[in-house]
């Protein structure tokens, strides 16, 4: 694994500010979700927009009050378009007293308030915490925000440690882990005393653990290894091994649900990047289009060709459509120059293999994706790739490794047939 410059100093000392509301919101719903609203319908703030039941049950709520203007496809994914009336006409939820809520009720609230994992994978939180009779040995809080530039989790840990610990106490009621470990990276060790102040809130052992600065420390499997020493293969459910991992952003959302009585309609994101004029950490409503954020920030040098990145610089995606919205898994919006990559031939340096946290050989993915050789891609464990981008970052030849990986995965899945 390798070190990359963290670039967090740019925004890590900015407070969390509220972003003004956009006039339009685009709330993306995955294929499993069913919209419960119709075009032209008026919705109050916090009103349910779409939901799905079952194990992966999750819900989407209106971030503002206004009118449903219809449905729109953005990059091939369906989105609900909501036009803000700026009346802040909010739905009132029944009062919750988190200190006296039963575990089952907490799970219900987490489900009804649409809490999803905020680190990017967006796994429904209640499913993760519904451990039933499984013994949980360790509950890991992922405070290793290993993506450069992103400081959303950092500012939460810095400014809202008490809220995070209150959320931990509530989750602990449900999962009853023997031990809670709050993992932060060594480069943020100044947070440790701040966090340790609140350790006494719960009546369970809680440890603040300093993790190495390597990328990707915040990857679930790498984090579990750093904390417990267990090397779990990709695709396994950590709860089966007595491990539950939650992101700092998820804790914040749970705190907002239980203590502020707010469904998951906003999250903290970092607005940064080399071309962003106004930078900082903002409370942003889910569904805010990136064009709104880009306009809010402004671009330093408008002559340079720029691109807006949803997520971090290592794993984020370039937003093709200006209406691409902030989701529950978005940790940051970056405005970056569009740089031309200087492609050389692969020189077999092996840097990609050395950098790969999953110990794979990414150059072989490039080789065999080009040949459409599905069997070889499987032999080289392409399915174990976590798409962290470390290989493409370190590659001196700019071999299209990520392209090969995404393409190869589709080959294996069978979504592309040769």
């Amino acid at each position: 694994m390798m070190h990359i410059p963290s670039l967090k100093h740019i925004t890590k000392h900015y407070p969390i500010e509220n972003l003004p509301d956009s006039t339009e919101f685009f709330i993306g719903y995955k294929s499993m979700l069913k919209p419960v609203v119709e075009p032209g319908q008026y919705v109050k703030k916090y009103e349910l927009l779409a939901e799905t039941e079952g194990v992966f049950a999750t819900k989407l709520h209106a971030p503002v009050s206004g009118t449903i203007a219809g449905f729109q496809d953005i990059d091939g994914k369906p989105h609900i378009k909501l036009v803000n009336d700026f009346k802040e006409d909010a739905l009132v939820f029944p009062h919750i007293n988190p200190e006296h809520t039963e575990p089952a009720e907490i799970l219900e609230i987490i489900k009804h308030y649409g809490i999803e994992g905020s680190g990017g994978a967006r796994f429904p939180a209640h499913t993760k915490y519904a451990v039933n009779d499984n013994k949980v040995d360790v509950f890991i809080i992922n405070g290793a925000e290993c993506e450069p530039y992103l400081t959303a989790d950092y500012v939460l840990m810095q400014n809202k440690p008490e809220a995070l610990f209150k959320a931990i106490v509530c989750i602990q009621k449900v999962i009853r882990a023997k031990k809670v470990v709050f993992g932060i990276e060594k480069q943020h060790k100044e947070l440790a005393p701040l966090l340790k102040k609140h350790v006494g809130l719960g009546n369970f052992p809680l440890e603040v653990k300093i993790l190495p600065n390597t990328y990707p420390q915040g990857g679930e499997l790498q984090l579990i290894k750093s904390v417990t020493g267990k090397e779990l293969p990709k695709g396994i459910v950590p709860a089966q091994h007595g491990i539950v991992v939650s992101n700092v952003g998820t804790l914040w959302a749970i705190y907002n649900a239980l203590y502020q009585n707010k469904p998951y309609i906003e999250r903290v994101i970092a607005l940064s990047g080399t071309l962003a004029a106004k930078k900082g950490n903002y409370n942003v409503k889910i569904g805010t289009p990136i064009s709104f954020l880009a306009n809010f920030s402004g671009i330093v040098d408008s002559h340079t060709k720029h691109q807006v990145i949803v997520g971090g610089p290592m794993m984020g995606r370039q937003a093709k459509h200006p209406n691409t919205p902030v989701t529950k898994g978005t940790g940051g919006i970056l405005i970056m120059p569009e740089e031309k990559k200087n492609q050389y031939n692969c020189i077999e340096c092996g840097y990609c293999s050395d950098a790969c946290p999953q110990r794979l050989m990414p150059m072989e993915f490039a080789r065999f994706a080009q040949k459409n050789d599905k069997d070889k891609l499987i032999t080289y464990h392409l399915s174990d790739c976590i798409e962290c981008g470390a290989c493409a970052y370190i590659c001196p030849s700019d071999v299209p490794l990520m392209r090969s990986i995404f393409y190869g995965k589709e080959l294996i899945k069978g979504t592309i047939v040769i």
Partner: protein
Amino acid sequence: MNLNPFIKPKNNTVRAVMLDVIIALLPLAVVACIAYGVIALWLILTAIASCVVTDFLFNAVYAKNYTSFLDGSAIITALLLCFTLSPLTPWYVVAFGSFSAILFGKFLWGGLGKNKFNPALVGREFMVAFFTVMSSATVWVTNSMVNTKQSDLLSTGSLLANYGNNLLYKTGGALGEYSVALIFSGGLYLLIRRRISWHIPFALLTTFLFCTWLAYFYGVDFKYSSAGLLLGGLFMATDMPSSPNASQGRLYYGCIIGLVAAMFILSGIRFEYLSYSILLLNGFTPFINQIFMPRAWGKKPDYTVKAERIFFLTTAIFAMAFAVISLHYYGLIKYVVYVYIVYIILKFNFSFLKNIHNPI
């Protein structure tokens, strides 16, 4: 659509990699010039010119790529090739060797990074195959031509100082072998810059030294050049495209090179033991890469299957080593070169040319 990541480390392009290797090799070229003056400089410049021009011409004609020769790899090939030669080598032989190194060692494989064998050593074997002067002993009689006989940097006259002086500067052998200290520091620089990994040189040198110790123990005649060994171990065997790219494989590769080189010395291969052993193992690199694939995260490999595959691979390598010994004994190595020429030209025409624009 642009894909992640959207940041890149500074100064980590192929050119930067090549520049680092050139930086590591340059002091050796300077020492060669101190030792043999204009003769050495002329040979080195001839090699560089021949390599760069060949690289440019073929890339321009076949790949319509007019800038790729600037990546610096041709200069490295030229320097490494020169470093294995006697200063008495005729300039046209050097020019031919450099041309072959780039054409047959690199370009016909598809260009930068796609070569299966170390281009400099391929160039060297071409020179040996086509010019008898290369394998004559007279080409190594160079004492009378030395400009600077010895260094007096540590001039106390004690045994230790003499030893130190010899490490710093000692003429004898090929152009790149005059300063063990500088070879070592060049290698160290590459290690620190992470352009080579410690595995190959470490494994190669320890196995080889173990063999020399064994030979000494049994009183067998065992002649080798320690500077040449260091040069080969640090710069030739670690050539990125032709060496394995995972640490376990690198250790195995280094080990076997050391063993095979010792075997070659014992079988009477005087000058070519290291280049033969490196080239031989270059050929097995794809298999080594496959067998020593790193253990993927959370996976449990089948060690019995792996052991079996390692056994068969090692057997195959040693069988090939014995074949090389026999071919060398009967003076047939040049026919291997001829076969190689036919093979690589056919392969280029029917396969590699089609992929010449692919990065891998």
